[in-house]
């Protein structure tokens, strides 16, 4: 590789802009950082050679240089930003809340713009291949930028010679030249800088005062955090790291827990629904405006069972209680790596039992029977040899072209046809629907009335297993450390350069120039050293 020798004797890599040892601008390379057009030197990598900027020969090198560019990185961020924002214009497919298929829903609901939204794939944006590819490109850019800048920055920060070339000092943004500075004044300045926790190094009377060098590593640390988050995102795509299921369990029901390989069962012992009292003094004013009661608690009292010995699916397994507890919003129940979250409720939406009273013609009670929607009891014995036969049962009654039928298996609106028969009675049929009993024959002898109904709640639970969480957390913590380190601390340097009786003072910081200015100002207080001037302002 071609080497460049500086007049100070240091041998620099090709592409170096400022000599690594003394900082003198290297002729012929000044265009790389734009120093040929500005008086103030570009100090971002202290003029170190950056690989990507030096050669662009093979395809690999070109690709590398592409991803290494900040400009490309910013463009990718802007594209991701725009795409994400556009995705919120209309609801995503999973939130569309409609039975219509997406191909019709968007056009019907939102017209032409909805159709375009759907056809461009924005209805499923965040899992679409191109959005994921965009995020992946940002990830590639993160990795390559980090690799590419690590070495030059490391080299630049390692080579902190106190003695710099005069041109380097003169072309810093903060600079002043003072004549006839006494040695005491010089010492005062150095001591004042020391007091402000600058580290002082000296070489032939040249001084470098430096602090918070670690701040320069901030961007790398936070980018590593982001890379870890992206890796966690990849891990989460695998089933062994992350599964998600949803189950509706009715009160009293025991159900297999999805995504657990049929290993766990959950029982909904009871669902608790509570509302705020309208008498509550604190909220009286607000509750006056509410038509409906404001809920204060949704809670499933659940028992989790594990299958004791594996059985062939379909057979009733022997169950062993693992844990029991209350599942509330914001308070999931955790068992063996899985968590159950309160998610949905169908409040008192299904009939658990419907009880009837039966009387004979004289108004004497023949008894009552309790129809349980969940049990398959067909006959109910009454007194005096009377009995009930359930002939037809429609859990969610509706009438279609085919005649009476059920819309689903859930007893949300049960329709029951039953027959009362007795020793001297031909069967008399009744029809129950909508909390009302109607005889199906004219002038029945018996009289059947509704006694009571019991409603139960179905509780919707999200079942989650997510072992990728610690990785996300570690990534997030590292990111936060990185941004704090990079943005809350500042790498500051002051060079003191003696020259033929005068003293050159220059200052540099990667950001927060105002703070550096204040520090220098108070450090030269009481000396004859001139305050540095901001040479950028002059331009």
């Amino acid at each position, binding site marked *: *590789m071609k080497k460049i020798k500086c007049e100070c004797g240091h041998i620099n890599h090709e592409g170096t802009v400022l000599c690594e040892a003394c900082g003198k601008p290297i002729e012929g390379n000044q265009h790389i950082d734009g120093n040929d057009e500005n008086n103030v030197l570009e100090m971002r990598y202290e003029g170190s050679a950056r690989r990507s900027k030096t050669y662009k020969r093979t395809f690999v*090198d070109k690709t590398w240089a592409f991803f290494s560019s900040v400009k490309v990185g910013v463009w990718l961020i802007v594209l991701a930003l725009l795409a994400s924002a556009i995705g919120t214009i209309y609801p995503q497919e999973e939130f569309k809340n409609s039975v219509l298929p997406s191909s019709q829903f968007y056009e019907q609901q939102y017209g032409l713009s909805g159709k375009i939204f759907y056809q461009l794939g924005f209805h499923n944006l965040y899992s679409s291949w191109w959005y994921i590819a965009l995020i992946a490109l940002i990830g*590639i850019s993160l990795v*390559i930028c980090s*690799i590419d800048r690590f070495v030059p920055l490391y080299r630049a920060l390692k080579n902190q010679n106190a003695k710099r070339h005069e041109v380097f000092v003169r072309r810093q943004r903060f600079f002043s030249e003072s004549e006839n500075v006494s040695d005491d004044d010089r010492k005062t300045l150095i001591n004042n800088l020391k007091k402000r926790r600058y580290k002082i190094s000296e070489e032939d009377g040249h001084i470098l005062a430096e602090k918070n060098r670690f701040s320069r590593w901030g961007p790398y640390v936070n980018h590593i955090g982001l890379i870890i988050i992206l890796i966690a995102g990849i891990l989460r795509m695998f089933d062994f790291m992350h599964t998600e299921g949803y189950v509706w369990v009715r009160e009293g029901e025991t159900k297999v827990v999805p995504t657990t390989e049929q290993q766990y069962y959950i029982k909904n012992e009871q669902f608790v629904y509570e509302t705020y009292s309208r008498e509550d003094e604190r909220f009286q004013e607000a509750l006056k405006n509410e038509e409906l009661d404001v809920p204060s608690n949704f809670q499933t009292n659940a028992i989790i069972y594990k299958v004791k010995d594996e059985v062939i699916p*379909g057979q009733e397994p022997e169950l062993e209680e693992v844990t029991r507890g209350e599942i509330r919003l914001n308070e999931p129940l955790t068992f063996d790596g899985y968590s159950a979250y309160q998610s949905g409720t169908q409040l008192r939406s299904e009939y658990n039992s419907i009880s009837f009273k039966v009387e004979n013609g004289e108004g004497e009670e023949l008894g009552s029977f309790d129809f349980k929607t969940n049990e398959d009891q067909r006959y109910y014995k009454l007194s005096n040899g009377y009995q009930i036969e359930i002939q037809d049962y429609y859990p969610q009654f509706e009438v279609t072209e085919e005649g009476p039928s*059920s819309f689903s298996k859930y007893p949300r609106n049960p329709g029951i046809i039953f027959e009362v028969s007795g020793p001297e009675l031909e069967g008399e049929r009744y029809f129950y629907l909508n909390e009302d009993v109607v005889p199906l024959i004219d002038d029945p002898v018996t009289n059947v009335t509704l006694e009571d109904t019991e409603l139960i709640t179905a509780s919707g639970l999200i079942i989650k297993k997510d072992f990728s969480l610690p990785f996300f957390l570690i990534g997030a913590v590292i990111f936060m450390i990185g941004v704090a380190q990079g943005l809350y601390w500042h790498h500051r340097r002051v060079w003191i350069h003696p020259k033929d009786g005068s003293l050159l003072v220059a200052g540099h910081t990667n950001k927060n120039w105002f703070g550096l200015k204040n520090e220098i100002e108070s450090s030269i207080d009481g000396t004859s050293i001139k305050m540095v001037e901001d040479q950028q302002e002059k331009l």
Partner: protein
Amino acid sequence: MFKNKKMRLIFRTVVLAALVITTILVLYINSLQDDPVLAEGDQARDFMLERLDNGEDIQLSELEGKGVMINFWATYCEPCKKEMPYMEELYQKYQDEGIEIIAVSVDKNKMVIDNFYNRYDLSFPLVHDKNSTIMELYQVQPLPTSYFINPDGTIERIVKGPLTLDRLETYFNEILPENNQA
């Protein structure tokens, strides 16, 4: 960092290749996310349920060597009920050639299945998946859904939605033991 350009080129190529492969892998896994748990070609999951007609247990794995149709249905599903007579008709024809049908009702109540059963004249095994365990196992979404299983226990075909007599017969032929051997 690198002694020569060649080393650096190799390093860059390796890093880029790793990143590109990861990206492709991610996109591939992402495209699989929507796929069902059980796909055509997979081994069918075993189960055992009690027959409603004669009270005997029927187990899928014991039917190995026969072509099996598992039909998920329910009494509240009109299209399901409409394909029952086709199934009965072809069952009569293919039963002796090594075809078995298991009609899995996902109803909640046995009573409603009994009522239905009494109205139709069906001879193939009918089982009741009361707690939706098998439905969960097979991740059944719409009703009816039918699984056609080869004599070796692999899933030949998954059909979501109702079937016609012709198609049903075609699918039976696909899973006929003798066709499989040939």
